[in-house]
Every structure is written in structure tokens, then in C-alpha cells.
């Protein structure tokens, strides 16, 4: 490279630092009206017009909890195979035929299952909505889960599970869920290879009849559509879908108990997954908005105390993040950061320090203002697409909330006071409320963590 200025010369100009231009007034979140109608079979349809692009987004959500009080490996495996094979055959179409029908209208459809819900998410050119609904109706009411497809997907699932469990984030997630909720069914997010191998096609078809039922399910449609016509289309095509019983909702899991952080050994790791957790707040809790801002101040966005400390000051991590996960009956707060092995204990120490600081040094007016502006602005940005709006409406409906709740967020965020945020921070971020897991090479990270204290176990060695 040729002659160049020094770093110091580059960083200054004759004019010197300049004043920041002011902000204009932020517009309101433009939310469409949502038409909500429950069909005689118990399926609730939510439809909203959001033109933007000539597409329609569809989200079908069926509560699909296991009936028993504890995690059931066989059931988890069975519903996973169900999700993998539901689009592979009906009385009239095979796997390729189903995909071809969707592709002709630019359509995609994917089915996934978790301990709470079976969900089918799709998108297509808006003009193709009838086709998407036809395919959906056909697979919901007449999927055959062909023997050969079940056998093939079983084998693939076993391979995919092996790959997923080699990911440190999966190891950490499974350990964290056990730490939080013991053996409640909510922990059973990914099946075991053994349980998958034992799933028969017959069992999958039984589970389909048991799980894929309309009463209590919801279908959200957002896009370049006429909501009334769209609801009528759904009624015409999915009105004949029936079930023996209402869909099963997951019971509330136990509230996570405070306690030591559990060290889980992953040999050869060069990083550790730090995951801490504490009870959170449901959206309907009166302190929820204050808590949302307190969480942003702690670790909920880049300009947070935790991120600025362990990334921008110390260089321990690429990213540190805290946020809520909603569960039946409430929510849990989660903190996650992946840190180099040699600074794992130091990162835990700084994390505890920042938690303590939320109590002892409450969020300042400036911190709350920044969090408030971010919360309002990012709401505007996050809802500025059909898919995001559809996903949000579906999740809110499942929690018993409508679009009015969303519409009211900016006002609530504007009104919450600095004192309320400080009170929520003190009550909910106290270090004594937390438990968690660390996944790493225990030979390297174990001794300093043991010396630091509040850490137990070294995995299954």
C-alpha cells in the first residue's frame, strides 16, 4: 500500500467534532385491523390485509401437548416423525405431488413440532391462497404417513439428531431446560435416536388423529388479501376438518428454582456456553413493560450493560444477550453468551457483577430513555413485514391477546417511569434468583469455576 495518513490523522478533521442532528417524530405502528372468526369445528381464523408485496403468509398453530405429567420420549419421537411425514402423502398425492402443487403458486409449507404446539407455516403468491388451503386441508384431514416415508424419515431424523446434538448450543439448551423444569414435558424438545427408531407408521397415524385436531387451533392469514373473502375460503376448505377432542394445551411447568450453575462437560470445547435463567413475567403482569425496559438495559440489545462490559470492554465474547421466553402460565428470563474457555470464570464473574449492579445501581434516566426509544422503534421495524406480523399475531392469540395489545405497546412504553423500571430491575435481576448451566471443557474451565464458587458438577465424567 502507498503513502497514507496515520490513524491519528485519519480520526480528526479541521472542523472537529460535529453536533448530532435531532430526531423527527416517530410514526405510529401501522397495524391493520384483524378479522377474527371461530368456525363451528373450533378452528379460529385471524385474517389481516397488509399489501406490501403480492404474497400471503399462513400460520397454523395446534396445541399439541403430551397428555402425561412428565416428559415422554416415545411421544416426542412420534410427533417429530409425524411432522416430518405429514407432507409426504395423501390419498391422492405423494411427496412430490404435494410440493408441485405448492410450487405452482410460489408456495412453501413447513411443519414443525415442539412440546407446546404443532405449527404449519407457509407463504405463497396471494392469488394462490386457495391452493395453499386445499393442500393444507388435504394433509390435515387425509395424510397417510406412508410406511416407506416413515421409514426413510426415521433414518434421516436419527442422522439429523446426531448432527444437532454435536452443536454446543443444543447441548446447552437441553441442559438448561432440564435445569429449569426438571422432567416436565416442556423439556422434551428433541427426540432421542433410540425413541425415533421405535416409531412405527401405524403409531404415527394414531398420533395424527390424536394431535391434528381443529378445536383450539388457530390459523393466521396476513398479506395482500381481502380478510372477509379469506375467512370464507378457510371456512369452505377447512370447515370439514374434525377431531374427537379439543387440542391439548401444555400444563404450566414449575417455576425454575434458584441455585448453583451446573457445569456440563464437553471434551475438546474451545468455548463455553454460559446460560443463566430466572423466573420472568407474563405479558399480562402489570410490571411487564417496566421489566421489558430493564431487560434491555441489562442485556436485551447491543447498547446494554452486559454487552458493553463483556464484549466491547473485555473482548470475552462475540455476543451476549438476555431475553424472555414465554411458557404456559408465565415466562422465563434467559441470559446467553458463548465465551472462550480461558475466560469462562471471568465472564461468569462479570455477569454476576452486572446482575448485582441492576439491583445496587438502578437503570438511569438516560439508560431508560434509550431503551424506551429502542423498544418503540424496533417494534415498528419488527412488524414491518407480512411474515413478522403473521408470526406475532399467532403467538399473541395463543397467549389470549389480540392486536389491540400490540397497538397499545407504544403508549405503555412511553408511560412507564424510570422508578418503575428500577423497581422491576431490583426485583427481577437479583443474582440470587438465578440458576443455569455452563457447557465447556471441564478440564480447562472446571478449576477456576470451582474456585469462584456457586458452580456444581462437571458433567457425566
Amino acid at each position: 500500500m502507498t503513502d497514507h495518513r496515520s490513524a491519528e490523522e485519519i480520526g480528526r478533521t479541521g472542523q472537529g467534532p460535529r453536533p448530532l442532528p435531532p430526531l423527527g417524530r416517530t410514526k405510529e405502528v401501522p397495524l391493520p385491523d384483524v378479522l377474527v372468526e371461530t368456525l363451528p369445528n373450533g378452528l379460529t381464523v385471524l385474517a389481516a390485509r397488509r399489501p406490501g408485496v403480492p404474497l400471503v403468509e399462513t400460520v397454523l398453530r395446534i396445541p399439541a401437548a403430551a397428555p402425561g405429567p412428565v416428559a415422554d420420549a416415545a411421544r416426542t419421537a412420534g410427533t417429530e416423525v409425524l411432522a416430518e411425514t405429514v407432507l409426504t402423502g395423501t390419498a391422492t398425492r405423494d411427496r412430490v405431488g404435494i410440493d408441485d402443487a405448492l410450487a405452482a403458486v410460489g408456495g412453501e409449507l413447513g411443519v414443525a413440532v415442539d412440546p407446546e404446539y404443532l405449527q404449519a407455516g407457509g407463504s405463497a403468491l396471494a392469488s394462490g391462497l386457495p391452493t395453499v388451503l386445499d393442500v393444507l386441508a388435504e394433509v390435515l384431514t387425509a395424510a397417510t404417513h406412508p410406511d416407506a416415508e416413515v421409514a426413510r424419515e426415521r433414518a434421516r431424523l436419527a442422522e439429523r439428531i446426531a448432527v444437532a446434538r454435536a452443536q454446543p448450543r443444543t447441548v446447552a439448551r437441553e441442559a438448561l431446560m432440564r435445569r429449569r423444569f426438571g422432567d416436565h414435558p416442556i423439556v422434551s424438545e428433541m427426540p432421542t435416536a433410540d425413541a425415533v427408531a421405535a416409531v412405527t407408521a401405524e403409531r404415527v397415524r394414531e398420533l395424527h388423529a390424536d394431535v391434528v385436531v381443529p378445536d383450539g387451533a388457530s390459523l393466521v392469514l396476513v398479506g395482500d388479501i381481502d380478510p372477509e373473502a379469506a375467512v370464507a375460503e378457510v371456512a369452505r376448505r377447512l370447515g370439514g376438518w374434525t377431531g374427537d377432542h379439543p387440542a391439548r394445551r401444555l400444563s404450566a411447568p414449575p417455576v425454575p428454582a434458584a441455585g448453583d450453575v451446573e457445569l456440563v462437560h464437553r471434551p475438546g470445547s474451545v468455548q463455553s456456553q454460559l446460560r443463566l435463567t430466572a423466573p420472568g413475567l407474563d405479558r399480562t403482569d402489570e410490571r411487564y413493560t417496566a421489566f421489558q425496559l430493564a431487560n434491555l438495559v441489562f442485556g436485551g440489545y447491543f447498547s446494554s450493560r452486559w454487552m458493553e462490559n463483556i464484549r466491547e470492554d473485555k473482548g470475552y465474547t462475540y455476543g451476549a444477550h438476555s431475553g424472555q421466553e414465554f411458557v404456559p402460565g408465565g415466562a422465563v428470563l434467559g441470559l446467553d453468551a458463548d465465551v472462550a474457555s480461558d475466560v469462562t470464570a471471568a465472564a461468569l464473574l462479570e455477569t454476576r457483577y452486572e446482575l448485582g449492579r441492576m439491583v445496587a445501581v438502578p437503570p438511569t434516566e438516560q439508560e431508560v430513555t434509550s431503551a424506551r426509544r429502542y423498544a418503540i422503534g424496533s417494534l415498528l421495524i419488527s412488524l414491518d413485514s407480512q411474515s413478522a406480523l403473521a408470526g406475532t399475531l399467532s403467538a399473541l392469540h395463543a397467549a389470549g391477546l389480540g392486536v389491540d395489545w400490540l397497538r397499545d405497546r407504544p403508549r405503555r412504553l412511553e408511560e412507564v417511569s424510570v422508578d418503575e423500571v428500577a423497581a422491576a430491575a431490583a426485583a427481577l435481576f437479583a443474582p440470587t434468583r438465578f440458576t443455569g448451566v455452563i457447557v465447556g471443557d471441564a478440564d480447562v474451565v472446571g478449576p477456576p469455576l470451582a474456585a469462584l464458587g456457586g458452580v456444581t458438577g462437571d458433567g457425566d465424567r
Partner: protein
Amino acid sequence: MIAEKPSLELHRATLANGLRVLVVPDPATPVVGVSVHVDVGFRSEPQGRTGFAHLFEHLMFQGSESLEKLEHFRQVQSAGGIFNGSTHQDYTDYFQVLPGAALERALFLEADRLRAPKLTEENLRNQVDVVKEEIRLNVHNRPYGGFPWILLPPVLYDTFPNAHNGYGDFSELEQASLDDAAAFFDTFYAPGNALVTVHGDLGESGVDGTLALVERHFGDIPARPVPQRPSFAEPVPGAERRRSVADAHAPLPALALGYRVPDPGAEPGAYLAHAMLATVLADGEAARLQRRLVHTDGLVTDVSASNGLMGGPFDARDPDTFTITAVHPAQVPAERVVAAVDSELDRLAEQGPGTEELARQSARWAAALHREDDRVMYRMLGLGARELLYGRAELALELPARLAALTGDDVAAAAARLRSAGRALLTVEPAPSDAASTEGSTA
């Protein structure tokens, strides 16, 4: 069945200092995006400084003359916005998406760091540590890290710009100096080597007002010489090149086939035919390789194909890489997977895809492009990258129609071209945790 792309007006200007400007209003959204694309990617970083372009991208967030460290993030977020940056083969982008009310603030923030970034030893050392954690997270501590984007290029290419690891070698990242950063900035971050894109809600400013704001904030950045971009061309390999890499975290073997794609600038039609070929091969349950490899023969767990190493169509200049990747059970030899891929390519080369098959893939692709464009951030970045690399943001808008115009013969010719040229075959083998990779270690 392919719906019309909503029409967008593209407004262009060039400031006296050489900075190019693209303004694309969209009154349908309440948010606005501002991006700066700089014409330097990891292919241009100096030998002995692998990973420097990406490291430098991190440094650009560390403050500037009017903004202390951390202030860039804080000002974007306290205006209700989001931000990021990314380093590609041929360009580096920086962007913000905010409520429309923050348009001028976003322009100010981008201008301040393009004019006078604060490059300090302390921030450099801090960001070397952060980048190392990013690489541990995405490469060293997980299965299939860097597969195929870091592992495949050294097999297919011979020259440093095309073959080296764009994330960087740890020892070279650690040697990076403040003077390297100053030289890199002065050379590549000249205003004449960059493009500013504004897309979305322009509020009361309108197009003319927005252009005036860009002039107000960026106009006094002094012009500097624009570096001459070297050619990265190298001959297409004549034979198959093979390499095997051990992966301590991988439970199953994987393989990647790498081919050269046609020069997107010189042969755009053939280039897009390769993009369609990738879709016909691997996108959707009915795609050729899904049916044959995953379902009929049961050879692989998952398979994918991509026309380009990192991004969508027209996201890099020549040369770029067509990849086919698969994860497969240990009992299936890689040769069987490769033989099945070859036979499917041969079949397509002879008969091409059916008319309906092609129409379905076009419809699905058009819908996917619309879906991506439903977010200001993606549409802005897509427009900006094409404008910077090819001087034609329109490429982003024309894609659905150009893809729909491709014929079965075009796709057959693409398949034949892949079959007639040399290629790279990279295999990833599960290995015990103490084994290092046999060649081309990334750490």
C-alpha cells in the same frame, strides 16, 4: 403466475468527491434504511493479513471524530434502530434501519465514520479478541464450521485472493497493527470507492431533500485516489482436485463439490442459468437431488446447491463458485454420492428440466424474492450490492422476470458446462477430538 414486482423509482447522484448515491423511496413503509457499501472485500486484503477486511469492518463501529466508542451503537439504538455490517468477497456493507424520523441521524452517523473513524490500539486489540470469539463460535467449536465457504476455496483456487480464509488465521489477526488499519482505510475507504443507499420512508425530505442531506453530511469528505481494482481471474481447473479435512465435532461425513460459475458481468444469461440449475437440483421436495439422493437412493441426510459462495445472484464478481454440499452417513462412500450427482447432472444436460418443472421453480423463486423484499433491510442491501458491483441496482428488481425467461435448454447447457469442467471435491471426515485437519487447517 408470476406477479409484477411493485415498481420502485431509482434516483442516482454522484458527489464531487466521487461518492455514489442511490435513493429509492418507498412510501408504503414507516421505516428507512441507510447503507454504505465499500468496494473492498476479503479478496483484496493483503497477504499475511488474512481476515483483515472483516476485522476492519469491526473497527468501523468503534467510534469516529464526533462519536466516542460505543456511541455509534447507542445513537442508532436510542433512535429506535437496528444496525449491522458484513464482509463479503468483493464488498463490505454497513447499514442501519430506523424509524423514518431518524433519517438524518443515520446519514450523520455513517458520514462521520466514513470521514474520520477513530482507530486506536485499544479498540484494535479488543476487536481482535471479539473476532476470535466470532470465529470460535462459527468455526472451531462446532461441527462443519466454515463448511464450505472457508474450506472449499483453497481446493478450487490457486491464487491468494480467491483461495484464502476470509475469516483469517488467528496468528495473522494478532499481528494486525494500527498502521495496517490506517493504510487500509486510506486506500480502500476513499469516497469514490463507496456507495450510499437510502431506501424506505423519506418523510418530508422527499428524494431531493434526501439528496441534499446526503450532500450536507458526506459532501465535505475530501476526495482521495480510488484504488485500481486488480483482476482476480484465474484459469478454470482442467481436472478434479480433491482434499480431505478432519472435523473433530462432526458426527457424520460431509462433502462439497465446487465448480466455477460463468462471469456474471460477461455472461449474465449463462450465469443466471446456473442459478436456476442450483434451484432445479436442490430446492424443494421435487428437486432432482432431493428426490434421487435423499429419498430414492437414501444416500444423504441433506443436500443443497448454491450458485455463488456467499450470497444471492450478482452478489460477487468473477470468479465465483457453484457449490453442491451434502451430509451423509458413514456407510455411504463419498464416491457413491458424487456418482449420483454426476448422473443427475448428465440427465439434465441431455434433457433439461421440463417446462412445468421450470415454471414451478420460477414461481417459487419469484415468491421468495418478494418475501425477502418485504423487509426494507434486505431490499436495500440487495439494491446497494448490485449497484456497487455492477452499476445496476435494477438487477435486483429484474431477477424474477429474468429467471422466468430462462428455458430448459439454458439450464441443460449449464449442467453440461459443469460436467465438462474441472472441479473441487472436498470431503469432511469425522475425527477424534485430538486430530488436526490433514490440510488447510483454519486455526
